[in-house]
């Protein structure tokens, strides 16, 4: 069973548009951790945000914001006023049981000038 679903395989937007990347996760554990990573064309993985299962507070960091909803098992990521430099593959990651890591299949974001 897939633990993390990123249903959007690829999204294309024009610069300055807002875009939301969806992430739905599945776990029976009550304690778990969620992360978002960015993988630009150069290939490295860059950590963006983490969220604990017991902390449903949404977070904003500059143009980035995250909406965590336990009721729907979702942890969505919004980029406001997208820029060309935001073009990358974004991964949502679920961690539980300290040694269980599940990456979603990723959403490729193309931001066109």
């Amino acid at each position: 069973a897939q633990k993390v679903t990123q249903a959007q395989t690829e999204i294309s937007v024009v610069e300055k548009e807002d875009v939301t990347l969806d992430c739905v996760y599945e776990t029976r554990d009550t304690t778990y951790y969620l992360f978002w990573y960015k993988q630009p064309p150069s290939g490295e993985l860059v950590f963006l945000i983490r969220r604990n299962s017991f902390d449903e507070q949404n977070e904003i960091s500059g143009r980035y914001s995250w909406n965590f909803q336990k009721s729907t098992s979702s942890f969505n990521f919004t980029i406001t006023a997208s820029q060309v430099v935001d073009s990358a593959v974004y991964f949502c990651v679920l961690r539980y049981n300290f040694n269980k890591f599940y990456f979603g299949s990723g959403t490729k974001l193309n931001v066109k000038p």
Partner: protein
Amino acid sequence: NAGVTQTPKFRVLKTGQSMTLLCAQDMNHEYMYWYRQDPGMGLRLIHYSVGEGTTAKGEVPDGYNVSRLKKQNFLLGLESAAPSQTSVYFCASSYEGQGPNQPQHFGDGTRLSIL
């Protein structure tokens, strides 16, 4: 501060050959991990280590072995390479002293092709 360094960055092997991928971190992290990334997929955990001298299996361990003889190094071995092991391999490390909510720090990846 180099972070996580993977060696080599690229390698081409023939089926049946063996090789070792090296991961080194200079952040004094206890936990280290090896992942593989296949086209259109997220990373999948191969093996991990929670400290020097310890290793454990991840989601896709078959065909791989690992060793953690020194805290800063985590080696991934392919005993008899197969075309199905063509992939990009990522090493990561993390500090767990404040709990499992700490992010992993990744190397730049090793692109491995098995012919």
